[in-house]
């Protein structure tokens, strides 16, 4: 019968091409999958079941999961995982902003390149002279000036691609090498991070403690008043930006009144805050002996923020940035031009036109980031903090490693891994349902 023999042959050919891959897939992905699922319901423990110790593997039902979910440490580790994921929106925003910056490649004609280069060199030469003439830390400042010149020259002569390459490097090279680099950078005594922050902190605390504490109530009133005035003037200036628009984007009267009330309240709140702060902080600083730089990786409270800062650095110029670049290139130019003719400012253009166009890409990025965020943190923790002071940087994946490959409770470790998968699945599903609706509106 012709159809079935044809389809049989097609099957054979199809599978023949698929064979190498599917063999590997079956051996190293599918089979372990089922085995791991089974293991999660047993008491498989390397102490009892290994080549020297022939114990009996028993089926224990949901005991592993039960124990896991009632373990207080589990919730701490879960919290750690979530905390580390707090940086994700910032990373995505940073990638977006970077992509925006890169995509605004000015369409200046080629002959403008030379003046640009000259201007840039002039700028850095000027900075360099200023630095050499005066302030401390001059070697470092010269370094910055020199780097800046290099970047500028590179970008001005080669174009956007140069910047894009540089931005992509931290993400591309992320690995044990960069983790060790940051580990050394975070060293409280010898690392550049604290060396850079400490003088600033010292100046701030010197400034604050030198102001006398209680006789400074007049000073506090003064500071509060000044900040109120500055805020007020600043807000008026910002609002006045629209004064020269030739359109009728003026709000209605009662809307204007409501807005004024909000603004007044905001200014008052800030002023009150400044007042209180300026009264209390000198005493507080004097008692604490001045602002101190944190110990980053060895400090229970600062270990996670330290990892987040490093993660942020590595994620600014990532694949997300490239995806945004591509998506931004696809935003129809006519819409933008039409909007700017209508008098919409750049911010408004972005909010109403660009952002909705980016919705599908953002949606994709959020899902991928959440999935990898839930599973991540192992490499950072293993290299830099070994799980952190008092379990502060232990994420769920690190927990799997330490339970499975350090303690030997493989069944339990499998249960943890599957619980993690359940979270990932649930979150992805939620994301999909809500995100899809939002992206397609």
């Amino acid at each position: 019968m012709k159809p079935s023999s044809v389809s049989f042959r097609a099957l054979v050919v199809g599978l023949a091409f698929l064979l190498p891959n599917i063999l590997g897939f079956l051996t190293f992905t599918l089979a372990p999958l089922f085995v791991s699922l089974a293991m999660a319901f047993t008491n498989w423990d390397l102490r009892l079941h290994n080549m020297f110790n022939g114990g009996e593997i028993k089926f224990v039902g949901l005991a592993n999961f039960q124990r896991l979910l009632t373990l207080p440490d589990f919730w701490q580790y879960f919290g750690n995982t979530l905390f580390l994921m707090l940086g994700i929106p910032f990373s995505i925003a940073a990638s977006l902003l970077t992509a925006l910056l890169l995509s605004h490649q000015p369409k200046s004609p080629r002959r403008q390149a030379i003046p640009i280069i000259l201007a840039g060199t002039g700028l850095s030469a000027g900075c360099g002279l200023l630095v050499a003439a005066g302030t401390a830390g001059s070697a470092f400042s010269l370094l910055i000036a020199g780097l800046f010149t290099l970047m500028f020259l590179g970008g001005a002569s080669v174009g956007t691609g140069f910047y894009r390459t540089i931005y992509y490097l931290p993400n591309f090279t992320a690995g044990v090498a960069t983790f060790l680099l940051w580990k050394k950078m975070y060293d409280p005594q010898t690392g550049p991070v604290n060396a850079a922050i400490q003088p600033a902190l010292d100046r701030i605390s010197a400034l604050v403690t030198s102001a006398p504490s209680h006789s400074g109530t007049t000073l506090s009133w003064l500071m509060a008043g000044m900040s109120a005035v500055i805020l007020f003037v600043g807000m008026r200036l910002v609002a006045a930006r629209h004064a020269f628009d030739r359109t009728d984007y003026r709000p209605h009267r009662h809307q204007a009144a409501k807005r004024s009330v909000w603004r007044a309240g905001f200014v008052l709140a800030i002023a009150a805050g400044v007042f209180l702060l300026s009264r209390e902080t000198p005493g507080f600083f004097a008692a604490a002996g001045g602002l101190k730089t944190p110990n980053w990786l060895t400090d229970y409270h600062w270990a996670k923020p330290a990892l987040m800062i490093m993660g942020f650095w590595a994620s600014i110029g990532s694949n997300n940035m490239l995806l945004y670049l591509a998506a931004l290139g696809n935003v129809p130019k006519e819409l933008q031009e039409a909007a700017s003719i209508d008098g919409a400012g750049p911010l408004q253009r972005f909010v109403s036109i660009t952002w909705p166009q980016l919705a599908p890409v953002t949606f994709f990025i959020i899902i991928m980031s959440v999935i990898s965020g839930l599973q991540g943190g192992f490499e950072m923790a293993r290299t830099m903090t070994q799980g952190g002071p008092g379990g502060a940087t232990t994420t769920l994946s690190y927990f799997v490693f330490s339970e499975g490959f350090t303690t030997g409770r493989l069944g339990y470790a499998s249960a943890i891994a599957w619980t993690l998968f359940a979270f990932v699945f649930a979150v992805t599903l939620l994301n999909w349902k809500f995100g899809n609706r939002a992206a397609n509106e």
Partner: protein
Amino acid sequence: MNKSKRPLTRKIRIFLQTFGYHVLSALLGVSLLLPFVWMVLTSLKSLTEVDAPGWFPATPRWSNYLEVFSQIPYARFYANSLVVAGWVTLLQVTTSALAAFSFSRLRWPGRDRIFVAYLATMMLPGLVMMVPNYQVMIRIGLVDSLAGLILPAAFSAFGTFLLRQFMLSIPTSLDEAAEIDGASKWRLFWDIILPLTRPGLITLTVFTFIGNYNSFFWPIVMLRSIDNYTLPVGMLYFDSVSGTTTHLLMAAATMSVLPMIFIFFLVQKTLVSGIQEGAVKG
């Protein structure tokens, strides 16, 4: 808009805009690269200078780079890493290309259902598979060997997925032409489709290579003999053993980062367009 302004004002405005753009971009670039700059500068310091504040060594000690080799078997770590990553990449690219061809250009019963199964496994955390894979390695006796590092990583659903996306964009008219010419499926694959998937192949190669070069969880679990260490594990070992010789550690780190930078500059353009194509289409 306000194009009624005089051409000169407009030129000045564009000049300022461009200038501002370059200043901003350059500043961002500088701040992103600063850690790397620190890494290289520290790698040139001497031991006493490492603890002192200040970014610059008094005289650059290039001999630090050689000293790394005498402290740990760095050359061996490097070779191990390159060979393992090389094999994994080769195997993954070839098997994924074959599989992607099967999923995209061939029609056979059950094709789409199996593909969905592939896709579904992509969402699983790799952790889930680690434990049983390790047990298998023990049984086969491949623990503490490079082969044990290569095999589990050599097959990937992601690679298949990515290449399939690229292959789908190749017009089917080529298939029909080949069929008319009497070419077998193999020739279709080897001579026609594969060369056309070049950007996808390059993208996959780069990502697989870099991903495996940096991979760390599996080698740390599997490797025991220092002879078999790959770079990440070797550098961790160096860090735990060396204590305060930060300059040597930074030299080792710099050297280990070089292949990635090199590869990146080589294939930059293709890579970027590959990512954008592959993801936007997906």
